[in-house]
């Protein structure tokens, strides 16, 4: 090897002997040339495709402007959290869809996390039956397509519910029927604002006291029961104010059974229910495995050490296991949340008015399939990025703060 120094490519080792190297062997020059060529090819291909797109669009009479966004839509998404009439614009229709997507995502993520936590812990249970039930659940939901699950939940479960007249009556004036789930609609009574303020004060006080306790703990000083005080304020203050206001701060509008339908109250459509429940059941199976993996990854020595220094079981879990498990759990959990948001686009199959479903109607009416799709994809991009940013902030909070 040492006998052949003349063959070794000097250029590869960098610039110190730069003067003697011809330019076509200089890595710095080569790097620039490679990048220019690469960029040129990418731009050429994109340009060719774009050119075809423009010429083909023109021959088919598809305009490339976005003026249709301000036109009257003339249709009404099946459900909406903001007021909407057919006279509103396409842009507002898409906004309605986006808000529905956000609502399904938030409710779905909440349900999936709670269920995933329960199933994940059940997978660690020493009870054989509990363990195997959780395992069966995970395997069934992970190994079948989400779309099939959604169709079953919608067509076989929610649409097969009894009719309105035979609605299943649940406690607290709640009804479950083919037309969806009805519950009393809470409305703030005239004096209710005071109660809402007390809730906000309680929450703020809770978090500041909890934070203070954490600070004292870190500094090695006693917490003086600050955590107990915080919890007591969180529960006690709103309760106290609730009973001080005559008639209670909230007025409930109960659903009434009419001749053909339940009216009033808060209604969740079967489409919304099927989509959130379906997404939650599917995602929970994955979250359960993540949580199980995270808890199992905390080494046994940590547990033994924690017990040795005299921590109680609850403290072992809260102070030793969870902080370490969370570090492992958060990143994959984030990608499951993102998957849930993206999977909510399957609403199309069961007719829930999410952004993708609304965009299909818009694109059929305007004849602008590509432009509408680009807008929808951009919205998903922004929602995904937003979720990632939030979860990354949380992730940074739970990671080890090295001193």
């Amino acid at each position, binding site marked *: 090897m040492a006998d052949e120094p003349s063959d070794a490519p000097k250029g*590869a080792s960098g610039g110190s002997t730069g003067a003697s190297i011809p330019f076509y062997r200089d890595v710095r020059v080569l790097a620039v040339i490679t*990048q220019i060529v690469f960029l040129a090819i990418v731009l050429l291909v994109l340009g060719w495709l774009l050119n075809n797109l423009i010429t083909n669009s023109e021959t088919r009479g598809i305009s490339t402007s976005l003026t249709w966004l301000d036109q009257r839509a003339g249709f009404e998404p099946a459900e909406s959290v903001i007021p909407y009439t057919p006279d509103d614009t396409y842009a507002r229709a898409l906004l309605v869809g986006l808000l529905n997507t956000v609502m399904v995502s938030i409710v779905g993520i909440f349900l999936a996390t709670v269920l995933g936590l329960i199933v994940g812990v059940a997978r660690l249970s020493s*009870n054989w*039956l509990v363990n195997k039930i959780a395992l069966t659940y995970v395997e069934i939901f992970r190994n079948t*397509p*989400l*779309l099939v699950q959604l169709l079953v939940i919608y*067509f076989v479960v929610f649409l097969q519910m009894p009719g309105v007249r035979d609605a299943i009556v649940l406690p607290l004036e709640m009804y479950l029927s083919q037309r969806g789930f009805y519950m009393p609609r809470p409305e703030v009574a005239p004096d209710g604002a005071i109660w809402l303020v007390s809730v906000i004060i309680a929450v703020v006080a809770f978090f500041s006291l909890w934070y203070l306790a954490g600070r004292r703990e870190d500094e090695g000083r006693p917490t003086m029961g600050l955590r107990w005080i915080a919890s007591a304020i969180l529960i006690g203050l709103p309760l106290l104010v609730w009973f001080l206001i005559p008639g209670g701060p909230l007025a409930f509008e109960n659903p009434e059974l009419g001749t053909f339908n339940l009216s009033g109250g808060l209604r969740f459509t079967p489409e919304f229910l099927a989509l959130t429940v379906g997404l939650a059941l599917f995602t929970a199976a994955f979250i359960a495995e993540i949580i199980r993996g995270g808890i199992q990854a905390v080494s046994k020595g940590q547990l033994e050490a924690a017990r040795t220094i005299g921590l109680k079981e609850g403290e072992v879990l809260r102070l030793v296991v969870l902080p370490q498990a969370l570090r492992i759990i958060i990143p994959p959990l984030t990608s499951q949340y993102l998957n849930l948001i993206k999977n909510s686009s*399957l609403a199309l199959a069961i007719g829930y008015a999410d952004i993708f479903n609304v965009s299909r109607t818009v694109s059929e009416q305007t004849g602008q399939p590509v432009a509408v799709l680009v807008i929808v994809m951009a919205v*998903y991009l922004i929602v995904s990025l937003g979720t990632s940013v939030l979860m990354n902030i949380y992730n940074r909070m739970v990671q080890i703060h090295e001193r």
Partner: protein
Amino acid sequence: MSDDPQMTTGTPQPAEELRPPATEVGVLGWLNHNLFSSKLNGILSIVLGVIVALVIWGLAQWAVLDARWDVITDNMRLFLVGRYPPEEIWRVWLTLTLLSATTGLSAGSSGIGSVRMLAIMLTAGQLMLAALILVSGLGIVASLALVFGAGVVYATMLAAQRYPVRRLWISLGWLATTIAGVLLLAGLGDATPLPSVSTNIWGGLLLTMVLSVAGILLSFPLGVALAVGRRSRLPVVRVVSTTYIELIRAVPLITVLFMAQFLFPLVLPEGLRIDNVIRAIGGITLFSAAYVAENVRGGLQAIPTGQHEAAFAIGLRTWQTTVFIVLPQALRITIPANVGLFISLLKDTTLAYIIGLLEILGIGRAVLANPDYLGTQFEVYLFVAVVFFVLSYTLSQASYRLEKELGIGER
């Protein structure tokens, strides 16, 4: 073990060997430890046990007494191959037999447990299909063809165990099988003995498999290129690759499928028309390439820098280092992750039904549209779900085993 008697006679006899308490060993011990270890656990076990028994009893009763399985058996042909012409169906069976031979050959020659597991699964799968076809009255010939295919897997596996085939030949065999499969299924042209079968009339399980296998195979080269690009030292290459990967990963597959549906005809030059199925494969390929790229990037990052340095030290260039040193190692450790990707892709091909393809779920929906089968929704969806469960579960078990064999967890 054999000299145990002498041992016991030699040592002083214990007065009386205490047997462990009955509650610690055997069935009782198992119950005590696993179901009734505490009062709370005992109550939980009983309550859950009753619920599980009731659910299983109800389901079994429904499946045996109430369910209308004729909706499945009457439409078995549709579920399996869609509207693929009956007189050309032998081409599907022949493709499956070729696949069986190649799988058996690989399994026998390589002796890797997970590959052998796949071969056995293929055997079992074909036997199961044969039984389904027989029950559905689709003809004894098709069943026999499948039983023959199952036999081929086993025969070639045993033969190859005796006379192993070299790796190069196996790779060429897979290439030949793939090409032959495509030609057999799609046909050569109308004037030839193999008339063309338009992809528009492919359907059922056949289309599901075609979509997912074509999707993963085609996305692989693109994905590897993107992964290498993302790790490149050249900023322009890196930015372009990263942008593509992150853009695709942020949007749902269904939007990409629709985009492919509308955009492909628009961005291709006038006169070049492509089938719906091809557009779907294109969309799936562009989508899964981003995910393949992230898997491969994980593999690339796992290769220690020493490998790069050693390669440079012996005078390899950058591209030589990548192609001959880093990629082979990186790809090897990403196999399980990519099998996982294939499994989720397989399940995601059901989305193709939304853009109007008649893959297995699409066939199910089409069958349900027939008024004769009113009220058989659960039967149809359950059948589709079970098909996917069998495929996905067995593949994931094989992948789990492969992971162990590659020793990825241990490193």
